[in-house]
């Protein structure tokens, strides 16, 4: 496969090539290997990878007809490499950030010092769609609100990692990281061995430890369950995989009941007490008594059992206030406020439409900004000004003026690109990185993460719902090309 034909975009950061264009030191081995392989070799490996993923059942469901069609997530076999030095910064930055986010949540639902001190505008907090007043004044186990965090990082034009958003409610994607690693180890075995890639197999154990950490103290041998909406949920594969990796029971709402103030699951031996619930359903569906009364996915009485401390929930309800896109701009301030440290990872410059001066700027610069709805995700509710039509901008102008709290804007960033297999050659495609942070006794980051790739040429949106695929992410134990000492 010819790497010379690869088109390096000089205006954005390329993961494999630096100016010259030269192959970056850490990518040399991979580039060498790729150039030795024919297109047919690579195509064959790609097919093998897809087949393995399908047989493992790594699929998601598209509901285009009543049957529902299962598809394999588009997987790109070219791995993304991160050196030990780069990772060290990311890791420290994420640990710092997640600590601050947990302190913020504890504060917002507790003393509210940060609001009283005028660091964060209280209106933004109370109007956040993820804010749950039911959580006010409640002591959550060990003071941890968000146990599992998936933070989206991007590289700007200069190659710096920036935080694009925090996902502190119920981030998904870890299963793809785990399974695609298994597949890539088989597809690129030799290369993998040579590179000294840090293992990610501990994820299941770490997750289990993080959950055990909040088990009510009365339980001798705590029972952990993973609460899923069921097999027709598009992320069901992930729920099933994580339950297996942890060795815990996967339950649906209909398997649970609340009596005598505790949560139980219905087994063939009768009722069995549940101590910790890793819930993969949204706040609104957790308990029809407290939240949405029409929910069939949760369990009536669950929230009161939680409030009384009979059961632990991870993540806690109400964490959505911390990853609201209008709260995100304050995270660097939170880090300074709670930890008295400077942020290690920077944010993307963000304008909050509910601030009059920012709003004015946004409305004057719709064609150069990226507009996002504060409580949307998955690449929905978004306008990329540079790629928009006059009509779309007019539509967003109306929406922002009608409901400024729901919008923020950021400069359009030329996302970093990574060589990606398109048909039978490599082309640059935009990527991001979602590492997973687990908060238990310690805060730990699994070395790796989900590298999502926008498969459509020129697209800046990496979400799977918008034609995105993913790659394996290899965090290297060393720094290739750097002389030791």
């Amino acid at each position: 496969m010819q790497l010379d034909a690869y088109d390096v975009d000089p205006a954005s950061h390329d993961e494999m090539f630096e100016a010259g264009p030269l192959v970056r030191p850490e990518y040399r081995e991979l580039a060498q290997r790729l150039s030795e392989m024919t297109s047919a070799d690579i195509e064959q490996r790609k097919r093998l990878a897809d087949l393995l993923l399908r047989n493992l059942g790594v699929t998601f469901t598209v509901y285009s007809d009543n049957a529902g069609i299962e598809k394999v997530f588009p997987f790109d076999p070219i791995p993304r490499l991160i050196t030990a030095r780069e990772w060290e910064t990311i890791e420290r930055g994420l640990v710092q950030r997640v600590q601050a986010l947990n302190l913020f949540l504890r504060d917002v639902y507790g003393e509210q010092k940060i609001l009283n001190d005028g660091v964060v505008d209280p209106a933004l907090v109370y109007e956040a769609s993820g804010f749950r007043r039911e959580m006010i004044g409640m002591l959550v186990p060990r003071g941890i609100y968000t146990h599992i965090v998936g933070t989206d990082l991007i590289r700007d034009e200069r190659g710096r990692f920036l935080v694009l958003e925090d996902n502190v409610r119920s981030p998904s994607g870890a299963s793809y990281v785990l399974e695609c690693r298994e597949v890539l180890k088989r597809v690129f075995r030799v290369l993998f061995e040579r590179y000294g890639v840090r293992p990610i197999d501990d994820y299941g154990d770490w997750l289990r430890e993080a959950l055990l950490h909040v088990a009510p103290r009365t339980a001798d041998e705590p029972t952990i369950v993973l609460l899923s909406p069921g097999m027709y949920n598009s992320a069901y594969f992930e729920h099933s995989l994580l339950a297996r990796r942890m060795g815990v029971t996967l339950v649906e709402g209909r398997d649970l009941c609340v009596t005598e103030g505790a949560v139980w699951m219905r087994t063939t031996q009768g009722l069995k007490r549940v101590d910790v619930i890793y819930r993969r359903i949204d706040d609104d569906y957790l308990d029809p008594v407290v939240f949405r009364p029409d929910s069939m996915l949760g369990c009536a009485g669950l929230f009161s059992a939680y409030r009384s401390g009979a059961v632990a929930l991870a993540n806690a309800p109400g964490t959505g206030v911390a990853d609201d896109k209008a709260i995100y701009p304050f995270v660097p301030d939170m880090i300074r406020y709670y930890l008295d440290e400077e942020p290690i990872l920077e944010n993307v410059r963000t304008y909050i439409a509910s601030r009059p001066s920012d709003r004015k700027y946004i409305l004057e610069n719709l064609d150069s900004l990226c507009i996002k709805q504060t409580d949307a995700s998955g690449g929905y509710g978004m306008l990329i000004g540079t790629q928009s039509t006059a009509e779309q901008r007019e539509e967003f102008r109306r929406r922002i003026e009608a409901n400024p709290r729901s919008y923020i804007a950021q400069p359009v960033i030329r996302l970093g690109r990574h060589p990606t297999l398109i048909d039978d050659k490599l082309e640059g495609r935009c990527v991001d990185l979602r590492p997973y942070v687990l908060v238990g006794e310690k805060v730990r980051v699994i070395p790796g993460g989900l590298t999502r790739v926008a498969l459509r040429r020129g697209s800046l949106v990496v979400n799977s719902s918008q034609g995105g695929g993913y790659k394996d992410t290899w965090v290297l134990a060393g720094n290739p090309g750097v002389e030791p000492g």
Partner: protein
Amino acid sequence: MLSRVADALYWMGRYLERAEHAARVLEVTRAILVDIAEVDPETARGQWQRALTALSVPDATTEKLLFDHTEPTSLVSCIAHARENARQVREVISSETWEHLNQAYWSLEEARGRGLHESQISQSLSGIVSASFQWDGVADGTMSRDEGWLFVKLGKFVERLDGACRIVAVCAEATPRAAPSGENVRWLWLLRCLCAMEAYRIAHPQRVDRKNVLDFSMFDRAFPRTVRYAAVVAADFAKRLGEAHPGRSQGVDRAFGKIAARLEYTDVDEVEARGTVQFLKELGSELGEASGLLQSSYFLR
């Protein structure tokens, strides 16, 4: 074990056994029809009808019975149901059992996508039979002999018992004006549908006739697809489940035990004298009651 999980395991076992049985019956019937369709069209039609009745499926083409997702009794539906049940319980079955079943499903889907040629149909039918055999082996080799295993196996043998009762009953049914050649076709068909050609020849070397075949297919103790064998094994699994769940079984083991006992304490002459079809129907409805008890004891939520 979660009640929902036990339920899914039981039905995974049932659907796989159902798919295997139906695939074999269709395959055997097609093979026989190739021989006689031209020379004896009436026997051929009767045989086809008998196959459909034995499987409780509507009168449709083999393609439809094999590949039609909208037909709830089709083979592809059975395999899809087995897979859906397996997908719900992946954390309690080995990954090998899941992957094997998943692959069988995708092979069938691929065959469906390639179109409905004769060779495709034959291959898919024998593919289902061998996928089920292999699945048994994978499951035997990789699953703990725990509660979950008992539910899978009970499902398998309940389905086998049900299928055996139905197929023996359609053969025992008297048909007016049946030509002697048709009689012979019928009993050979039954033996082949039970994979029992060789076993039968050993047990009854003399000849293939009504009484001997009925005796073998209902009462043989050693062959694993006879009515008695399936009933005795199902009763044993039900008993072991009852022992593992003191106080929960509400007589499930007793209900299955009664079915096995009815087969233990009678023989072909007695049954033929009273009416074999009637006897098998009664067994079928007792099996229905036992399954209902199983449902209310272990699966109801």
